[in-house]
């Protein structure tokens, strides 16, 4: 069934339109479309998302009788309102009370550009103070920013590796691809003091901190950047849930330096780490194989359902999904494709 059209009309007359499948509810469809309406329980109980249908057929799902006026047949809770027709709904508040997710565009200056491990560079930017957005680096660990090469329209998205901070610092771990536009600019032209435009934060590869499950992070190469940010965040908040990191590389030289692992462990003592090398030299005594193979071995010992946070190429993510399906324990894969 194709999606129906929902029109929300704010008290001050603005019309917000978006599609909503008959199986979906109006509140969730609005959020998918980027409109965040006042809401709390999302379960038909608190009454915060009440509104009034002006036109169109709808069906109300299960909800608490105390949350909704029974005197008005057109009164609905948006979290329980399923359209059966194109709907027009009157909202009891003004447009200014509907949050719209907008991605900020700001200026930043290169603070440092240094070689990281094996063919990658560490790029550190500082946001320029702006009257509208201030100077803080606000993002959720795991999110990315789009960087524009100065004087061009060329934009590339890179995950943030550091933590949100009030100094406005944005740290990236970028692998240089020979011939790549951004890589070439970074390698040949970029220098501290250069200004560039950053757009973000964006992305839904973020921690589900309400989940009580053990967490396993799987990444390799620059897929580590968002995972590093997440692990640093868990460390900063002294998270106590079981946490494991699987870092995959082709050769030992591409592995995460031991010192990085120790720094993470200092703030996250429960962190278990598997370094997996698929083509190791003769002296390697760690896990031999790919990151998904290391995950499979680690999951074989796990008794609970796991939240797996994976960042890597499509092939790696496909392999992880196959392993999880095979295991059949209800593990959840939260992934970012590189």
């Amino acid at each position, binding site marked *: 069934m194709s999606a129906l059209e929902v029109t929300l009309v704010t008290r001050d007359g603005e019309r917000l339109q978006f599609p909503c499948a008959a199986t979906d509810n109006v509140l969730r469809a609005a959020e998918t479309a980027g409109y*965040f309406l*006042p*809401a*709390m*329980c999302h*379960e038909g*109980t*608190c*009454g*915060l998302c*009440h509104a009034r249908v002006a036109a169109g057929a709808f069906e109300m799902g299960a909800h*608490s*009788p*105390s*949350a*909704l*006026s029974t005197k008005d047949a057109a009164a609905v809770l948006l979290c329980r309102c399923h359209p059966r027709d194109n709907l027009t709904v009157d909202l009891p508040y003004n447009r*200014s*009370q509907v*949050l719209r*997710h907008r991605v900020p565009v700001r200026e930043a200056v290169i603070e440092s550009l240094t070689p990281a491990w094996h063919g990658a560079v560490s790029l550190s930017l500082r946001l320029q103070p*702006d*009257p*509208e*957005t*201030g*100077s*803080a680096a*606000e*993002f*959720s660990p795991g999110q990315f920013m789009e960087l524009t090469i100065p004087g061009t329209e060329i934009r590339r998205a890179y995950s943030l590796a550091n933590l*949100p901070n*009030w*100094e*406005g610092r944005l740290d990236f771990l970028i692998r240089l691809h020979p011939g790549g536009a951004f890589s070439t600019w970074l390698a040949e032209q970029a220098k501290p003091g250069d200004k560039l435009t950053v757009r973000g934060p964006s992305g839904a590869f973020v*921690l589900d*901190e*309400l989940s*009580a499950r053990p967490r396993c992070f799987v990444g390799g190469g620059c897929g580590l950047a968002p995972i590093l940010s997440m692990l640093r*965040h868990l460390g900063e*908040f*002294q*998270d*106590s*849930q079981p946490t494991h990191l699987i870092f995959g590389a082709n050769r030992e030289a591409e592995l995460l330096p031991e010192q990085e692992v120790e720094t993470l462990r200092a703030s996250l003592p429960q962190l278990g780490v598997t370094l997996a090398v698929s083509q190791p030299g003769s002296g390697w005594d760690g896990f031999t194989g790919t990151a998904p193979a290391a995950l499979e071995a680690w999951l074989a010992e796990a008794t*609970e359902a796991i939240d797996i946070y994976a960042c890597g190429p499509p092939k790696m993510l496909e392999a992880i999904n196959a392993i999880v399906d095979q295991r059949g324990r209800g593990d959840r894969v939260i992934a970012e494709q590189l």
Partner: protein
Amino acid sequence: MFCYQCEQTTRTDLGGGCATQKGVCGKDETTADLQDLLIYQLKGIGQYSYRLHQLGQADAAADEFIRYALFTTLTNVNFNRARFVELIAQAAQVRDRLRAAYEAASPETPRLGGPAAFAPATALPDLLKQANIASVRAGADLVGDDVIGLRALVLYGLKGVAAYAHHAEVLGYTKPEVGAGLAKALDLLAGEPADINVLLTEALALGTLNYAVMELLDAANTGTYGIPAPTSVRTTPVAGKSILVSGHDLRDLHAILEAVKGTDVKVYTHGELLPAHSYPKLAAYPNLAGNYGTAWQNQQLEFAAFPGPIVMTSNCLIEPQPAYRNRIFTAGPVGWPGVRHIADGNFSQVVQAAQALPGFSETASEKKILVGFGRHAVLSVAGQVIEAVQSGAVKHFFLIGGCDGAAPGRNYYTDFAEKAPKDTVLLTLGCGKFRFNMEDHGTIGGIPRLLDIGQCNDSYSAVQIALALANAFKCGVNDLPLSLVVSWFEQKAVAVLLTLLALGVRNVRLGPSLPAFLTPAVLGVLVDKFGVQPINNAEADIAASLARASA
């Protein structure tokens, strides 16, 4: 998970209670179960603490732990399961210490059983397997819903008393009898009482204890920050960097004002901190710029629109939206997973955040409201008030007190304030007032018709005003031209209701819905014995109040 401690709990034909993976407030199943376990342990600590109090060997640190831990389990306070895992481990240590002290003092006594003997697991999955023993409905099949509901009434009253006592304690005001009273109630609950009269008596004893605690809190607030005085508070923003402080905790607000001293960062109060402006020692800070926003249930919109950091010092926190999750901080008993927590009273990073965030770009046109009619201010014009009643200029007083919330039934309180005749005075208390306090309600003989007494934490002040008027008119509180219209939401309101009942105040109108944990039979007792009345509709209730109709 099973939780029915607040007003907005899920209600179905089968009864009230949040029993799915997540409660209406946003508390998940794991956190709810861990909170139940912590409460169960606190009952065990209460068993030892009560006995040590009787022996004159009270452990003040254990009493403090009980108050803080109970406070964390109030509605909309702490959602961070990791914090509860820590508190459960700490509770086991506190219990062990008290057990050792008690057994040293009474070597002949056999070891206590029940919650006092509970050994919590260390790993989270094992802890969750133990949670059934601690459910608020444990034993329902044996003792029935009336008893379970009354045990819940005692427990929720306890939580409210503990929260008020904690607020007083952080300002350095404690009394050993508060610790003893809380321990006694916990000890009683540990014994799984099934006698309805015993439970009702304990509920009223907690009401009496809460009266003493409210007095202590009043002394703490006025002793530390001065006597509240009528104060005009700006409710629109001023250009510049800004911090928003919500919750109830005056000490945290004071610490933030100290932290911004000498900067141009402006501090705004939110929700229940509005009355803070009436304390002279807080109002004296030039950085205290005004109040921003309204009651707790509107925080997602108000916080998202606020251009600076936000500090939540106590309840009511609801799930921080992505729009402001990075710039909201919790303090004291409050917590949310992944939200920065300030445990040591050092708010310097909040100031740093304020400097980095944009702040208000322009000054809005000035709007003000009047607050600060606590007992001192009202009683200073007692002569005028009495004269106004005697001359007929004031026909009646309505105390519209308690919490706000999202349910549409709460429109009743707005209707009540709007429809109350112009020759009546509206006294407000708590955050329910935000539904109508921005309107101009006029004056009677130069006295504003709407007098805000303060936070829900200032209920003592309201009771003192009522007692003083009763004294002046040489009658009882129930004979005064005064009606109490109470909106409840969380457990502090339960404690205040128990105080009113313990003081013999009758005919309290309670809404928007009655507690889900009380069965019709127990509610019947409250109606018969204390005249507690569910709200009806505003016009009918106003008319009944003016006619002094009672239940």
